[in-house]
């Protein structure tokens, strides 16, 4: 049975659609679970608020890609504007525009979840078949170190020179042309995101995929969700251009990702243990750009292929891991907090600019509890992310390590992303970093890894979902995406989400068959 791809604006306004399972969100979690449900013979509707875009639409121009493929047209940020939030919004979600780095969940994180949240069901052993299944489906394999682009090579060499742990990452690609455009949609159909894997699997087994369809509210009668209201969200029109429809299903799965899944529950007045939206984790990222003698051309070559986990576990202090980003002009410029001549002077040397990232691991202790998702009065989603001394300490230390690694990697000159950047001419200048303040609105901070907000816990009095992903107090509502993660991971999150969604397939199938 072959499925259908439907643009929401072509539906009759006010129509009611019925199915066995309605999944909201077509990213790592939603598409993976939807494929399993369709293959089991269930009638599934998958709603996606973003558009259905394929290689044909990827013109690889930043000014078009971010509005087309990212949340809030690329303008999402925390309430105080301090943290730029990069998050996907399209068929495939984050997996269409992510940088393809794949890691299994580290054992120490799974142990922490078992100890703190009772998640023994998510042991390494029990998750293994799910990781293996997704590795096979998405062709997750190590990307040879020799293929690292120059920006990643600086990280590799810097870490090696300092004796830091460093390694080549695994990527979900097949026939990757090493173009460097992962963040703007893969022009070669090489990235094995949901768009080319689980979504075609699901369509082949009868999925109805409705894009430009934003789930607005789940309607509950007691412990049962009876229907969902959706509105048409056309990217080329004013957001409130009108139009909407209803979906009735036996089971509903919320897979809108961190930030959006909690927001949907809050809009629906579903808030078990008053924890929805709490502990929203961002893996906050600080960056250090530098100028090298040789050309770096960080726009070219797989954007992220080398990582260092030297500082990921700092005991009670907040840890971080180091990676590298792609450097197309806009992304490279967007960290610059200062203005005027300095911006042009630095960016005019873009060919020689390299950037290293420190990705800080939040949620592992009370001292870095993460942020909170709220609903604003005008209906928009709010994200607050208060600073803590532990976060500021981590940012400070991370800057020092980034600077040391940058110079060990051969940089001539490095700058911080403060409003008036501190310029470092060599390792002898590293101590001057201490003169600066670190934290929100003191320098640029980004996130590309949103997690938590609907955290999983075995304790019914804790968490939003149980180990079966079912929302506490609801019979037929599941959350399956990055929002269930109780802590940040210390590795890039997509593969954990694929594996959890793969594990959740039979749980949802049973619920739909039993309903």
């Amino acid at each position, binding site marked *: 049975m072959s499925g259908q791809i439907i643009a929401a604006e072509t539906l009759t306004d006010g129509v009611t659609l019925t199915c066995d399972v309605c999944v909201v969100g077509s990213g790592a979690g939603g598409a993976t679970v939807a494929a399993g449900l369709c293959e089991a013979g269930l009638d599934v509707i998958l709603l996606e608020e973003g558009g259905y875009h394929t290689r044909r639409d990827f*013109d*690889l*121009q*930043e*000014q078009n890609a971010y*509005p087309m493929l990212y949340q*809030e*047209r*690329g*303008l999402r*940020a925390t*309430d*105080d*504007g*301090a943290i*730029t939030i990069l998050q996907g919004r399209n068929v495939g979600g984050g997996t269409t525009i992510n940088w393809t780095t794949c890691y299994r969940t580290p054992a120490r994180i799974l142990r922490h979840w078992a100890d703190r949240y009772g998640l023994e069901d998510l042991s390494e052993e029990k998750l293994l078949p799910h990781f293996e299944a997704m590795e096979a489906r998405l062709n997750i394999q190590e990307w040879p170190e020799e293929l690292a682009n120059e920006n990643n090579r600086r990280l590799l060499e810097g870490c090696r020179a300092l004796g830091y742990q460093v390694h080549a990452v695994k990527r979900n690609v097949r*026939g990757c*042309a090493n*173009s460097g*455009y992962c963040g*703007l949609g893969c*022009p*070669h*159909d*090489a990235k094995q995101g949901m768009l080319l894997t689980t979504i075609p699997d699901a369509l082949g087994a009868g999925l109805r995929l409705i894009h430009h369809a934003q789930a607005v509210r789940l309607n509950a009668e007691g412990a049962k969700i009876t229907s969902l209201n959706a509105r048409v969200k056309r*990217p*080329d*029109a*004013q*957001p*409130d251009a009108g139009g909407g429809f209803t979906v009735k299903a036996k089971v509903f799965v919320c897979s809108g990702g961190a930030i959006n899944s909690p927001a949907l529950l809050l809009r629906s007045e579903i808030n078990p243990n008053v924890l929805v939206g709490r502990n929203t984790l961002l893996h906050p990222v600080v960056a250090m750009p530098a100028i090298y003698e040789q050309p770096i051309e960080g*726009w070219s070559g797989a954007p992220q292929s080398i990582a260092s986990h030297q500082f990921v576990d700092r005991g009670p202090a907040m840890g971080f891991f180091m990676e590298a980003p792609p450097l197309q*002009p*806009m992304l*490279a*410029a*967007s960290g*610059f*907090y*200062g*203005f*005027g*001549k300095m*911006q*042009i002077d630095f*960016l*005019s*040397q*873009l*060919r020689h600019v390299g950037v290293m990232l420190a990705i800080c691991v939040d949620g592992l202790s009370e001292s870095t509890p993460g942020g909170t998702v709220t609903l*604003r*009065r*005008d*209906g*928009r989603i*709010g994200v*607050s992310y208060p600073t803590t001394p532990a976060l500021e300490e981590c940012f400070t230390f991370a800057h020092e390590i980034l600077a040391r690694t940058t110079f060990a990697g051969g940089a001539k000159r490095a700058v911080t992303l403060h*409003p*008036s950047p501190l310029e470092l001419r060599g390792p002898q200048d590293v101590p001057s970093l201490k003169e600066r303040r670190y934290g929100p*609105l003191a320098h640029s901070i980004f996130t590309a890894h949103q997690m938590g907000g609907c955290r999983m816990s075995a304790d019914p009095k804790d968490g939003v979902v149980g180990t079966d992903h079912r929302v506490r107090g609801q019979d037929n509502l599941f959350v399956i995406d990055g929002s269930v993660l109780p802590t940040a991971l210390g590795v890039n999150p997509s593969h954990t989400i694929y594996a959890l969604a793969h594990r959740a397939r039979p749980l949802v199938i049973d619920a739909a068959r039993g309903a």
Partner: protein
Amino acid sequence: MKLSRRSALGLGLGGLAALSIGGIGVSLSRTAPRSPRAPLQALDERQFAVLAAVADRIVPGDHRFPSAWDLWVPEKIDANLGKAEPGLAVELGMGLLLLENAVAALLLDGRPATFTRLDAEAQDETLKRWQSSSLTLRRTIYKALNGLCTATYWSSPEIWRLVGYPGPGAHLGVKELP
């Protein structure tokens, strides 16, 4: 009390509105006009004029690089906002009016200053004050404006050649992988 964006742009929206338009009699007639070269989608003419002034300080251009105005940065930002959730343009518009507002500047900085009427040097000083202001709201507005202008400028294909970026041409229209 620290003014956070939540309190000022969310719950205290009324307060921000009052602050930003409070000096309307003083500053409304005095905003130096800048005519948009495309129909405005989200901002009004006054907000647009302030945005244009800010954009030209964020990326003023030089003998090699065009200015933000040359690349239509203010119009591009307005067009992008026109397709975003309306609340975003409302907030940004208020932020622009607050930056422009002479009365707010008098109250907070002890001197009346209409941003669009300042010379380039004084505009730069104002932006620097906002970057590191003790008021979170000012730092938030600076960051939002800086981020929008910077991102919009550097994503313009006109600057690719100037920074040695070849653009994505080699990867477009490929039918089959080797």
